[in-house]
C-alpha cells in the first residue's frame, strides 16, 4: 500500500466535537432507557407474551447483519485481490467492529436479566443453542477483524494481511449464517423455519453493510475536505446495485416457496395482501423504498452519477433494511402460531389472533443508542488512528490499482 497515504482526520473544529457530543447524548438516552427497562422490567416496553422480541431486536439484528457486510469492502480487496478496494479496507474493518459492538450492546441490554451477562451468559453454554454459538461467533469476529486491521496498519505485519483477510471472510459468512439461523431454526413459526433465511441474511448483509460503508466514507471525506474520485465511487455504486438485486431475488424465492406450501398460504396471504401495517411495511418499506427506488437511482443515467443521489440511495437501503428487519422479526411473531391445523383457535392467551405491537420510546432509544455507539466508535477511530487514505482521487486510486496487477 505504498502509494496510498493513510492519515488520521484532522478535525480540531467545533463540527467534529459537535458530532461526538450529539452522539454522546443519544448514547446516554439509550443507556437511560436500558436502565429503566432493567429496574422497572419489560412491562414498560411495548413487548408482551406475543411479541417477545421488539424494536431493540430490530436495531440489534440489523446492525449485526450490517457489521459483517461492512467488512465486504476489505474482503474484496484482500481475499479476491481487487487492489482498488485495498485503501478502503481499514475503514471497512473498523466499521464492522463498531456496528457489531453497537448491535450487541442493544441485544444484551434488552435481556430480561442483563446483570447475568458475565455471571451466567459467559460461563454457562448450551451448544445446541445457536445463541450460545453466536457468543463465540461474535467475539471471534471482533478478534479476527482486529488482527486483520493490525496486519493492514502495521507495516511489518502486511505479509499476513491476505491470510487474516481470508479468515475474516470465512468467519463473517459463518457469523451471518448464525444470525439468520436464529430465525431459520424456529420450526414452529411459519414465517421462520427456513434454511433460506441464512443465505438471505448474508445477501442482506452485503447490501446493508455496503450502503452504510459508502455513507460513512462520503461523510468522512466531505467533512474533512478530502476527495473521492469517480472511479471508486462508480465501482462501489455498481456493487451496491448488484447486492440489492440479489437481495430482492432471495426475498422473492423465499415467498414463492412459501406460497407453494399449502399450509403456509394463509400466512403469506396475510403478509403480502391483508396484513395491515405489516403488508404496508413490506411493500412500501422493504420492497419499494429499500430495493426498487435505490435500484432506479443507481441505474439511472443521470441520478446514478450524482453523489447526492447515490448517498440518498444508500440512505434508502438502510431505511428499507430496518423495515425489512421489522417485518421479519415483528411480522414473524405477529401472525399467531398454528397449534391445531384446520381449526379456528381462541383463548385468553391470544391464540388465533394477529398480535398488535406498539413499541415504546424506551425501545426506540435503546435501539438508537446502539446506532450512536457504532458511529461514535467510527468517529473516534478515524480521528486517533490512520484508517482513512489521505485521498481517494482518481489518480491515486488508478496508480494503486495499476500497482496491484
Amino acid at each position, binding site marked *: 500500500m505504498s502509494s496510498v497515504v493513510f492519515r488520521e482526520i484532522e478535525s480540531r473544529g467545533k463540527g467534529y466535537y459537535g458530532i461526538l457530543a450529539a452522539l454522546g447524548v443519544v448514547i446516554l438516552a439509550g443507556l437511560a432507557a436500558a436502565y429503566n427497562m432493567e429496574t422497572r*422490567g*419489560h*412491562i414498560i416496553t411495548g*413487548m*408482551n*407474551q*406475543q411479541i*417477545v*422480541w421488539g424494536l431493540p431486536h430490530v436495531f440489534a439484528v440489523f446492525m449485526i447483519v450490517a457489521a459483517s457486510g461492512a467488512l465486504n469492502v476489505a474482503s474484496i480487496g484482500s481475499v479476491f485481490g481487487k487492489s482498488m478496494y485495498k485503501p478502503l479496507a481499514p475503514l471497512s474493518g473498523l466499521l464492522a467492529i463498531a456496528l457489531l459492538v453497537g448491535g450487541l450492546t442493544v441485544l444484551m441490554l434488552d*435481556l*430480561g*436479566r*442483563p446483570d*447475568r*451477562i458475565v455471571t*451466567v*451468559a459467559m460461563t*454457562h*453454554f*448450551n*451448544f*445446541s*443453542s*445457536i*445463541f*450460545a454459538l453466536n*457468543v463465540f461467533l461474535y467475539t471471534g469476529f471482533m478478534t479476527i477483524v482486529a488482527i486483520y486491521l493490525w496486519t493492514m496498519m502495521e507495516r511489518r505485519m502486511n505479509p499476513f494481511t491476505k491470510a487474516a483477510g481470508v479468515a475474516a471472510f470465512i468467519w463473517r459468512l459463518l457469523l451471518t449464517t448464525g444470525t439468520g439461523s*436464529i430465525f431459520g*431454526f*424456529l*420450526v*414452529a*413459526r411459519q414465517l421462520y423455519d427456513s434454511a433460506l433465511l441464512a443465505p438471505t441474511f448474508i445477501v442482506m448483509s452485503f447490501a446493508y453493510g455496503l450502503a452504510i460503508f459508502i455513507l460513512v466514507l462520503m461523510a468522512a471525506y466531505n467533512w474533512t475536505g478530502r476527495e473521492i474520485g469517480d472511479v471508486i465511487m462508480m465501482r462501489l455504486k455498481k456493487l451496491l446495485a448488484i447486492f440489492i438485486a440479489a437481495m430482492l431475488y432471495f426475498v422473492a424465492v423465499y415467498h414463492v416457496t412459501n406460497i407453494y406450501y399449502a399450509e403456509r398460504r394463509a400466512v403469506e396471504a396475510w403478509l403480502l395482501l391483508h396484513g395491515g401495517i405489516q403488508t404496508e411495511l413490506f411493500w412500501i418499506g422493504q420492497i419499494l423504498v429499500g430495493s426498487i427506488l435505490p435500484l432506479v437511482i443507481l441505474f439511472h443515467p443521470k441520478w446514478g452519477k450524482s453523489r447526492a443521489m447515490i448517498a440518498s440511495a444508500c440512505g434508502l437501503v438502510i431505511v428499507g433494511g430496518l423495515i425489512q428487519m421489522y417485518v421479519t422479526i415483528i411480522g414473524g*411473531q405477529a401472525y399467531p*402460531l398454528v*397449534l*391445531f391445523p*384446520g*381449526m*379456528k*383457535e*381462541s*383463548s*385468553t*392467551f*391470544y*391464540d388465533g389472533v394477529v*398480535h398488535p405491537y406498539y413499541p415504546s420510546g424506551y425501545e426506540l432509544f435503546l435501539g438508537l443508542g446502539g446506532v450512536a455507539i457504532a458511529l461514535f466508535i467510527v468517529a473516534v477511530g478515524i480521528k486517533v488512528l490512520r484508517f482513512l487514505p489521505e485521498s481517494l482521487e482518481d489518480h491515486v486510486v488508478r496508480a494503486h490499482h495499476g500497482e496491484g496487477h
Partner: protein
Amino acid sequence: MSEVNKERRQLLGAGAAVASLVVAPGVFLVTAGKGRADEEAGEAGPQWGKVRWGMLVDTAKCSSGCTQCVSACDKENHLSGETLPTSSQWIRKMELTDRETGKSYSLPMMCQHCDNAPCVDVCPTGASFKRWDGIVSVDRHLCIGCRYCLMACPYKARSFVHHPVTDQNPDVPRGQGCAESCDFCKHRIDEGQIPACVEACGSTGGGALLFGDLNDPKSEISQRVATIATLQVRADLGTEPAVRYEGIL
C-alpha cells in the same frame, strides 16, 4: 515419509484438534447435566428415563365454560390470574372449531413436556432443561431473559415475567425478567401429590385430566394411551410431547 503423507498427517492432526475443541464442551455439558439430575433425584432416587410423567386430556369431558384447572394453577403457583397481553399464563383453555365441519372442542393447553423440547435446544445457558423424570422446567437462576424459548415453543407454553412478582409460593420461585412455564407442579410431584390442575379437574371440574407415569406399563395412563386413539399436538414437529389429547382426532 513423503511430503504428501506429512501434509495429510498435519491436516488430520489439525482436524482432530479442532474436533476435540468443538466436542469437549458438549461432553462436559452432558456430564454436568447428569450430575444435576442425579442430585435432584436424590441418592436412592430414580434414574434418567425410569419415570416419564405425562398427562392425558379427555376433551369429551372438558367443557367450554369450565376453567377450574386454570384457577387451580394460578392459586398454586401464585400467578395473578390476569389475562393482559403481558400476563403470565401457565395453562389456558383453548376453544377450537373445525373450519370444515363446525365441530367445536374445548381443552387445556400448557407445557407439553416434550421429549425433544425446542425450548431446551435453543436456551443459550441451559436454564431451560429437562429433568430426569421428563419434566421440562426453567432454572430461574440461570435464565438471562433472552426469550428465545418463547420464540421456539410450538405450543406458546412459555411466559416471560413482565410484571413485578410479589407474594410468591416458596416452592415455586419466580423472577421478573425470566422465562417460566408449567412444570407439572414438580414441587407437589416430588411429595407424592398430583399437579394442582389435575386435582381441581377431578374434584370440581369434569374429570378430564389423567396424570401418571408413561414409562410404567401398569399405570392407568399407560394402559389408556395403549388402547385408545390419542393425539400429540403438532406431532409432525417430532417434539414428542408427554401430554396427549383424546376425542379430537
